[in-house]
């Protein structure tokens, strides 16, 4: 029976090749458009997450209690030599212990407030520090007593590589320390906000300047975001008495944008599909109405109502399936076309304000494809309800009288 229905439907589809071609084109453009749009939104999401996470936050961060309200070295904690939480190596990109304290930096001419960050340069593969362009030299290791400053800060302080700067910050005893540093190099990040805030130096040297063996934070970067929750639990058990925070708690704005982008995918879909529905229903009704005689005949020789409904629904589903398949391929091609990234540098300041990079690289998620395909097919069935009802309403008598 089903075979017969499918056959009937297919035959009806080939009856009006051009009309159905137009319908396929409309469905394909809608599905392809949604798919391409989704890859951009996902790209934007990934980008924003990456910016938020690599901006010294990491997926998870560990603090001593109270540090976030009062960031100074007295609120640090000591790390055991070679501490090893039980996190699967394949989930972990790396972890970086740091000291991060507010400080005042002075050149011969200018004074600025900054965040002084003591780092182990080898461990900073997990942060933006590994991707920035450096003029001069990078810090060599944890014992490097020079500083790496942002290009914009260097400009504001009217200083350059090789010159000296004085940094004032609070030591472990609560008293201010003042020390001269030579500039090893300047870094050039996207935008200037990071360049203005962060000044890096070797972790061990900073500890000795502050008379402390502590660090103020450990930042952990994972290979994939969804692991954050499970790893966080492991870390809570490991770092007893410390605060373990994930990026969503640390960067609430980025997290809100992230959720917003999830919603945007559904809004795009709903709008595109609404535009499509008008044409779809139109064609399906036409397909029913031109077969009034046929349906009347089938009813007269005893075909049940449910079977007639099934036939219209099957037809609609077949149309949708073909359209969706073509659309997904189209979306994929658009994705490939833009796979190298879209240059947004013309909007550099605007996109930076949005927490994005100037190059938007689309990301295709299989789950999105499945979602779009499923919802589209569901829509196909939904759109066939009225035409099917219309078909059932045709009585043999009415049909034959025409």
């Amino acid at each position: 029976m089903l075979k017969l229905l499918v056959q009937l439907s297919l035959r009806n589809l080939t009856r009006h090749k051009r009309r159905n071609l137009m319908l396929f084109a409309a469905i394909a453009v809608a599905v392809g458009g949604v798919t391409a749009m989704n890859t951009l939104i996902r790209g934007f999401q990934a980008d924003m997450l990456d910016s938020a996470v690599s901006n010294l936050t990491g997926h998870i961060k560990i603090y001593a209690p109270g540090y976030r309200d009062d960031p100074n070295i007295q609120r640090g904690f000591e790390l055991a030599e070679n501490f090893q939480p039980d996190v699967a190596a394949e989930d972990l990109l790396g972890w970086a212990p740091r000291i991060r304290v507010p400080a005042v930096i002075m050149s011969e001419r200018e004074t600025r407030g900054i965040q002084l960050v003591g780092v182990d340069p080898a461990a900073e593969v997990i942060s933006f520090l590994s991707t920035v362009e450096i003029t001069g030299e990078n810090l060599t290791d944890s014992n490097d007593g020079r500083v790496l400053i942002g290009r914009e800060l260097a400009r504001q302080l009217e200083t350059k590589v090789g010159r000296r700067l004085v940094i004032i910050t609070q030591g472990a005893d609560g008293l201010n320390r003042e020390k001269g540093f030579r500039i090893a190099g300047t870094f050039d990040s996207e935008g200037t906000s990071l360049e203005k805030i962060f000044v890096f130096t070797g972790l061990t040297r900073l500890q000795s300047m502050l008379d402390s063996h502590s660090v103020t934070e450990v930042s952990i970067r994972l290979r994939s975001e969804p692991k954050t929750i499970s790893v966080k639990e492991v870390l809570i058990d490991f770092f007893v008495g410390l605060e373990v925070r994930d990026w969503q708690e640390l960067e609430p704005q980025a997290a809100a944008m992230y959720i917003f982008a999830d919603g945007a995918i559904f809004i795009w879909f709903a709008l595109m599909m609404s535009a499509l529905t008008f044409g779809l229903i139109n064609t399906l009704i036409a397909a029913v109405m031109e077969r009034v005689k046929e349906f009347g005949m089938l009813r007269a020789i005893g075909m049940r109502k449910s079977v007639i409904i099934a036939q219209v629904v099957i037809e609609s589903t077949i149309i949708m399936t073909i359209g969706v398949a073509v659309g997904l391929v189209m979306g994929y091609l658009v994705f490939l076309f833009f796979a190298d990234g879209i240059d947004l540098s013309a909007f550099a300041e605007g996109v930076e304000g949005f927490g994005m990079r100037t190059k938007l690289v689309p990301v295709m998620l299989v789950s999105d494809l499945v979602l779009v395909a499923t919802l589209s097919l569901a829509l196909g069935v939904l759109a066939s309800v009225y035409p099917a009802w219309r078909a059932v309403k045709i009585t043999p008598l009415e049909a034959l009288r025409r």
Partner: protein
Amino acid sequence: MMHVADPKDDLPISGDHPGALEFRARKPMGAGIWMRLLSISWRNLWRNRRRTWLTVCGIAFSVWLLVFARSIQDGTFELMVDNGARMLPGHVQIQHPEYEASPRMEYTFSASPAIDRLRGTGDFEYISARAQGFALVSVDEKSFGAQIIGLEPKVEGQWSTLASMLSEGRYLQRKGEAVIGRVLARNIGASLNQELILLGTAKQGGVAALAVQIVGVYDTGQAELDRAIVQIHIDDFRPTWNLSADEAHLVVALGKSLTRSDVGLEKFRSTMDEGAFGTLGWRDLMPEAEQLWDMKQISTEMFFYIIALIVGFSVVNTFMMLVFERTSEMGVMMAIGMKPGYLVAQLQFEAFLLSVTGVALGATLAGALVAWMGETGMPLPVQADELLKQYNMPDRLYPNFDWRALFIASGIMMLGTQFAALIPGQRVFRMRPVDAIRQEG
């Protein structure tokens, strides 16, 4: 087959024309025939009400979508910029010509001539001077670096949104007071009424030291403002940093409206000596706002083009069905002497009427919605609060009807529909009346 009430009334084949041959021989010129074609088209359109409505709705939907979306963006943008400007930068800033490139303490100028000239334009509501510089800010043993802004609280207190975003205490009123950001206060462990020591480098290089009392703590939700800014009275700033009584780093002005500020700035520029001042409008002060706006507009338009394409396909489809089911009718018309050109023209009329109806419906819906929301405002989800603060957005949107979007949307939909009707219309030229009549309608 022919559903037109009485073809004789409408077609150029009535009693005036004794026969088709004669009709063909005469050149049917004049406005009459076009009017008739138009009225036939209108009737034809409603022969299949359901189909026409569905197509009209498709067109209306896309017009509505673009106009409404752009109207919301339009309304939002001005508010966003204005809110951003009122947070701290103002609409317009006048500076020492070198100050923008390198904000150094010694790049000052005499404020009152600039203030007078700004006032002379008549486009600004609030004008005042600021002096600013970096300093070490400490409470007891703890210290932080921050930007110290010396301003005139009497003037800025009237327009500054920052002044109304105090989580504790009140805004500046007189000398000896300071307001600081919430994050800064937390970082140095400062609370209301405590003494704040500012330590910086004065204009000539000496030490600038000042003690002020914290009278207010503000919470704007914007990290940069909350973390690193202290506002004090400009009359405290000047003597401490060795500035004379009229010296300033900036003159900040707020226009009577955003557009008036542009006009006023232009007037100011045209009267000043070349290079005498650095002049910054809101576009220079908040470059990210305009770029964000451009990006949003581009993405909205791209989205509209995709939707227009989808609707376009369904319009082509409608006309294909229409031509197909009228094939035999068209055959009859041609047989009795109607030229194919007229049949195509008739289809074009139908397309025109269809798109006009759709556009009118879409524009009306969008207009009504915009008018209604312009009154009541469109509430935004509470979850977006964090974002709204960050981007200076209000918690309610007041859309502003975007005529440009209406022109773009209706232009594209109408041209598209004419074109869509042309595709199946070509069939008419290839039709042979005999075959056409024989075809089942």
